[in-house]
């Protein structure tokens, strides 16, 4: 009964989205206020209905209602409650429902907080947003209905893929979807602006917070996924250049470019058509990501059970929205006249360079991801493109980006000189060189990655500090705290990138690994640590059997940590997983994995020392935090409030 209610609510939401994508659009075209304003309650209703539908599916999972096919295929009575709830989106149908729920959430948020938008723009934004919703509602209802019943409900379900039975599943997909779907707002704003034929500073100011929020969520989502892979997959890799990772990385790169180009539109009324194009592409790549994951054209560890019919449907959605958006862009972009005049060497120029580098690096990821598909179609060659290619083809652009970032960030608008921009950065440059020499001295005979990564990281961080000091001037602490939050956000996010650079560089170059047969009670040495396997026992978990080892790690005779790496078997899915045990530290992680019992009594054991591993994710958190600080900047709120006070001056946008 509840499932049918959810199904019905979903169909109603589809109907509401059909209303919302047509009536307000007609209203905006004809100038009928009532028709335009009906978009707001419609957006609210749509969110409510989708929410009811999602809640119904959650109830089915929580109560283990195996008469639902989806619950039977992805759940089990013995599964812990956390995974019953997060299992709702641990499958294709449920994750699509989460996707449209978030889409509707963004629509409702735009309706709720869009009080300061001109009515026609608001109506069009909500109309475009609803049209995306309608396409995905149709996709769910016609190809991926989560509410299908089974005629003969079985006693128990088939359980969730054990790899997904992890707290990571509770947070990684929702954040990732908030990011993906958040970019739909930038897309809707771009399409609405194209229809309106007007892009100006005010438009950029409205679209930027949404993009910033989406980028922030995407940053957190990707970082969570990377961290999850790090501890779950058992060898401590943090990035695999897997097609699905790439699918989330491309929108991230483009969203980062969009954030920066929107600044130029806002401050200098230039780069307008490029910004619109970026907004369309960023969401287009979000949808390409969905297509890659759902269609199975490119095999990946992430793929849910893939189905050609679904792939074709998503490809059609992609063609309509990306194709339609780009066509509209081609027709209308000529009307976007740039106003700002500036010299090539200026903040504007630096941001153009930033955009060029980010867009090209996204292109490299794209072509590498699609190349196997392309080669098979063109030459019937089955080939692979993996980490070695991406590391070589992608990294140079990131190095270039990091090199110019602090210089560009410190340049004034309109006109700058290189020598004057470099002057306040002399200290930062010296600091970065010192760090490089230190790293070089410590790691003689090892790869250059450590030196480059740490040097660039130090350069980014010190450059951000130098910029804050420059903005503060001589007046010191009282002023530094009163700097606009946007300045702080920028400094924090750029430093975060630096921290991640350091983490990636040092971890890649300095990690050590040891594979051996360990006997119980016999310690072995590894990179200055003494590791002892003290015990191995069988432990019964709620829905798995675990082989749990107890391992002591000591340094200079003092115990550093006692770790419990596990090897689990989930009988329902007949699948083994490793649960690495990690001792987290600021400067190193100790990462232990237990393997099989050997014929002569010992146990296979794998140990890693991973220096600076946590810096990768700490940097990501800093980047997201920088976005959050920037988002809380006064001008987003003040401009909003001021507009409500003076509704007559709409034309001043």
């Amino acid at each position, binding site marked *: 009964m509840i499932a049918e209610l959810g199904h019905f609510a979903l169909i109603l939401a589809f109907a509401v989205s059909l209303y919302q994508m047509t009536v307000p659009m007609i209203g905006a075209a004809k100038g009928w206020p009532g028709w335009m304003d009906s978009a707001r309650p419609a957006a609210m209703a749509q969110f409510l209905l989708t929410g009811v539908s999602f809640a119904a599916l959650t109830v089915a999972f929580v109560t283990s209602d195996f008469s639902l096919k989806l619950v039977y295929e992805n759940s089990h009575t013995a599964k812990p409650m956390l995974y019953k709830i997060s299992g709702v989106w641990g499958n294709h149908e449920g994750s699509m429902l989460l996707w449209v729920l978030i889409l509707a959430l963004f629509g409702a948020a735009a309706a709720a907080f869009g009080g300061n938008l001109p009515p026609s723009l608001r109506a069009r934004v909500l109309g475009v947003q609803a049209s995306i919703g309608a396409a995905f509602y149709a996709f769910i209802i016609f190809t991926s209905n989560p509410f299908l019943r089974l005629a003969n409900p079985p006693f128990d379900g088939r359980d969730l893929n054990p790899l997904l039975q992890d707290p990571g599943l509770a947070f990684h997909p929702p954040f990732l979807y908030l990011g993906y779907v958040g970019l739909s707002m930038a897309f809707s704003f771009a399409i609405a602006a194209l229809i309106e034929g007007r892009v100006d500073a005010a438009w950029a100011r409205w679209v930027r917070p949404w993009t910033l929020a989406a980028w922030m969520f995407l940053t957190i989502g990707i970082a969570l996924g990377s961290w999850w892979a790090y501890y779950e997959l058992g060898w401590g890799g943090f990035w695999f250049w897997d097609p699905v990772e790439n699918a989330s990385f491309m929108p991230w790169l483009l969203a980062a470019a969009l954030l920066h180009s929107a600044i130029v539109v806002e401050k200098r009324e230039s780069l307008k058509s490029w910004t619109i194009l970026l907004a369309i592409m960023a969401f287009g790549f979000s949808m390409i990501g969905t297509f890659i994951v759902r269609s199975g054209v490119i095999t990946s560890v992430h793929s849910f059970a893939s189905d050609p019919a679904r792939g074709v449907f998503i490809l059609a959605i992609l063609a309509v929205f990306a194709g339609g958006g780009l066509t509209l862009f081609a027709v209308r972009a000529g009307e976007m006249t740039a106003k700002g005049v500036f010299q*090539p060497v200026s903040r504007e120029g630096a941001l153009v360079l930033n955009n060029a580098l980010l867009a090209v690096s996204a*292109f*490299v990821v794209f072509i590498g991801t699609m190349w196997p598909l392309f080669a098979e179609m063109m030459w019937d060659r*089955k080939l*692979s493109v993996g980490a070695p290619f991406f590391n070589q083809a992608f990294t140079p652009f990131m190095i270039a980006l990091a090199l110019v970032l602090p210089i560009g960030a410190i340049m004034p608008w309109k006109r700058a000189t290189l020598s004057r921009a470099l002057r306040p950065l002399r200290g930062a440059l010296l600091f970065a060189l010192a760090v490089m020499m230190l790293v070089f001295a410590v790691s003689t005979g090892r790869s250059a990655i450590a030196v480059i990564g740490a040097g660039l990281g130090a350069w980014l961080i010190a450059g951000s500090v130098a910029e804050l000091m420059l903005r503060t001037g001589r007046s010191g602490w009282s002023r530094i705290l009163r700097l606009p939050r946007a300045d702080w956000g920028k400094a924090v996010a750029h430093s975060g990138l630096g921290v991640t650079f350091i983490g990636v560089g040092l971890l890649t170059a300095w990690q050590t690994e040891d594979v051996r047969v360990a006997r119980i009670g016999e310690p072995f040495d590894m990179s200055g640590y003494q590791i002892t396997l003290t015990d191995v026992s069988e432990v019964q978990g709620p829905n798995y059997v675990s082989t749990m080892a107890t391992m002591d790690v000591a340094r200079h005779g003092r115990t550093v940590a006692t770790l419990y790496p596990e090897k689990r078997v989930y009988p329902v899915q007949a699948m083994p997983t490793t649960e690495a045990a990690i001792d987290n530290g600021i400067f190193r992680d100790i990462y232990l994995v237990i393997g099989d019992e050997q014929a002569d009594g010992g146990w296979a054991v794998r140990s890693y020392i991973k220096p600076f591993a946590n810096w990768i994710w700490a940097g990501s958190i800093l980047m997201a935090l920088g976005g959050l600080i920037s988002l809380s900047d006064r001008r987003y709120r*003040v401009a909003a409030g001021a507009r409500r006070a003076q509704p007559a001056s709409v034309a*001043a946008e």
Partner: protein
Amino acid sequence: MRALFLAILLLVTLPFAAFAVQPDEVLDNAALEARARQISQKLRCPVCQGENIDESNAAISRDLRLYVRERLVAGDSDTEVIDAVVSRFGEFVLFEPRARGGNLLLWLAGPLMALVALLVAWRFLRGRAGLQSPPSDLSDAEKDRLRQIMRD
């Protein structure tokens, strides 16, 4: 039938339960072992989804790892080892596509695109610098309002 399938799956997967390089595979010669690891990371497991043979738990990956080490001990160079594996399994197992033939395009795509992007950006920037600021189409009241917003 299903139960049988599960049982077979259990038999096949359990001996290699989530553990890639086994201790008995590791070579005594550290330099050779390091080379073997490097090579393994460039070779794709032929039956898995996007894993290299160094990370993979599949039986065939183990065989390939052992084969790579065998060749290295026999004195083959890195290229020779990789060539030998590719000649058996095809270029599908190469995670680093060779930069020749059509694949040259893949390797050159990034640098070429960067060149194009920089050229376009430069032309745009030159164009911007040469322009005169166009007359504003805002009224004075609107400009005041805009200034007020921008100041906040």
